[in-house]
């Protein structure tokens, strides 16, 4: 990292180059990122505070918020357990097919969320492979809450694992091996040795997973049936409101989601500076 002061070194870029670059970068960031974010809040408050809060009192909106929270409360813990198990298996052991497993974990990030919803329709809808099995028992999956949970779980399952795996890989297996020689079994080792070492990465992974679960749109759009007040999550409700030209209400709900996204980013920034401090302290000794 260069400082703005100090003698000119041969690897310094000329000032005009540097400031042009910074200006271009900042302009890009503002136009592409900041503007849309600002628009959300501006539009939400366009008709004043009263209208803003009224949006949340509406029963359909409240139902959407409740559904989002329910789905998130199921998907995130499941994916957290998965992430921990996968990171443990992948980083502490050597086995055949490890890279295949890692590729599989990265898969949802490169397929369209609509396809994620599609594959569940292909399985669980009335015309799906497993459809009749569930229909006979009166269980609705597609166009009902279980389908939404499944689709959300699929789309967000990599996030915890992806935060944990590189860190645990880097930490190696020495501490766990030491714990084994001291007489600890696998559960004790996992909870007392491995877990505390990754607590910040885990926290951020869970936060990110939660943000993505709350905001999932494409996959849920496919499996939900868009029944207002029953199978609409917050993002779907935003879509409904927007399509009805009820802009203020739409942006009001959207702003809640945007706020959570900002909290996630802020926590990440705080965690990173904490990491830096810890790293620096460890390297000093």
């Amino acid at each position, binding site marked *: 990292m260069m400082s703005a002061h100090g003698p000119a070194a041969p690897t310094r870029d000329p000032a005009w180059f540097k400031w042009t670059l910074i200006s271009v970068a900042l302009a890009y960031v503002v136009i592409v990122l900041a503007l849309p974010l600002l628009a959300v809040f501006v*539009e939400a408050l366009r008709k004043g505070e009263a209208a803003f809060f009224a949006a949340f009192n509406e029963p359909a909106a409240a139902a959407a918020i409740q559904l989002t929270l329910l789905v998130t409360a199921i998907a995130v813990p499941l994916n957290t357990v998965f992430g921990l198990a996968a990171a443990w298996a992948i980083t502490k052991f050597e086995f055949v097919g490890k890279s295949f497993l890692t590729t599989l974990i990265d898969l949802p990030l490169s397929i369209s969320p609509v*396809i994620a919803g*599609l594959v569940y329709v*292909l399985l669980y809808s009335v015309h799906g492979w497993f459809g009749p099995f569930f229909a006979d028992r009166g269980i609705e999956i597609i166009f009902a809450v279980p389908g939404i949970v499944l689709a959300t779980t699929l789309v967000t*399952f990599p996030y915890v694992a992806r935060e944990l795996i590189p860190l645990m890989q880097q930490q190696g297996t020495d501490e766990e091996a030491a714990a084994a020689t001291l007489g600890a079994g696998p559960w004790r080792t996992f909870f007392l040795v491995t877990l505390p070492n990754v607590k910040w990465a885990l926290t951020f992974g869970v936060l990110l997973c939660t943000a993505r679960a709350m905001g999932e749109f494409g996959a849920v759009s*496919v499996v939900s049936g868009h029944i207002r007040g029953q199978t609409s999550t917050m993002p779907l409700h935003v879509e409904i409101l927007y399509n009805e030209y009820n802009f203020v209400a739409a942006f009001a709900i959207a702003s809640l989601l945007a706020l959570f996204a900002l909290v996630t*980013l802020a926590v990440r920034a705080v965690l990173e500076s904490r990491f830096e401090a810890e790293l620096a302290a460890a390297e000093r000794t």
Partner: protein
Amino acid sequence: MLGVAASPSSETKRWRFREPSALGGFWPSFGFVAVYLSFIVLIPLAALVLRPWEIGIDGVWRAVSSERTVAALKLSFAAAAVAASVNAVFGTIVAWALVRYEFPGKRVVDAFVDLPFALPTAVAGIALASIYAPNGLIGAAFGAHDIRIAYTPIGIMIALVFIGFPFVVRAVQPVLADLEREVEEAAATLGASRWRTISQVIWPSIAPAMLTGFSLAFARAVGEYGSVIFIAGNLPMVSEIAPLLIIIKLEEFDYAGAAAIGLAMLVISFVLLFALNALHAFMIRRGGA
């Protein structure tokens, strides 16, 4: 812990699935992971691969090659490519500024880069639509010159630029940060001009990372739905993206047709990403990162 499971040595050594280790808890964790993945990923994917053929090979071909489908696929892939390219250029610039320079607000910008990653796509979608709509902040400015952004393919590309932004920045940043200052200084002491240093020493190192970022942004953009659906015109043959076509087919209960288009998207993406990976490997071999 070393361990190569599968290569036979001169002694008769049985092939092992996994290297024995001092740690316990492999089978519970691996078992859980395997079951979870099968249930959540593998079986659903199998459905996607197998169901299209219910309408026979002709059926699949017809569904995939219809004019409307081809237009939608072309739009999705082309717009994604353009958006990813734009991000490749500007994302690298942003990464360069973040790694090499100090300026006020740098930390905020760094954290902000991940916004598209954390923000729900629908929120981004309506925000972008409102800005670039004919009566929106930017849309109005361009509208005065008779240029329409929202409801056209251009609007789609802008939404995809938003979505793919973090991928290039986060791919290039660590590579730039790791670049040893000393190599640049060596080039300078050997008489290289700043430009030569950049083009012959720095560029070969970051080019592969740019390509990785491009690939990730591209893959993400191809399937993007939420942020695009509001700003796109959704007119068939003109501004209809492939994911939307899949949803329309599902609403018509044409499951096999929807699956066929989904499968086509997956296959094309797969091929393209494979090619990009090969290009990446080639660059690494030649340039050395």
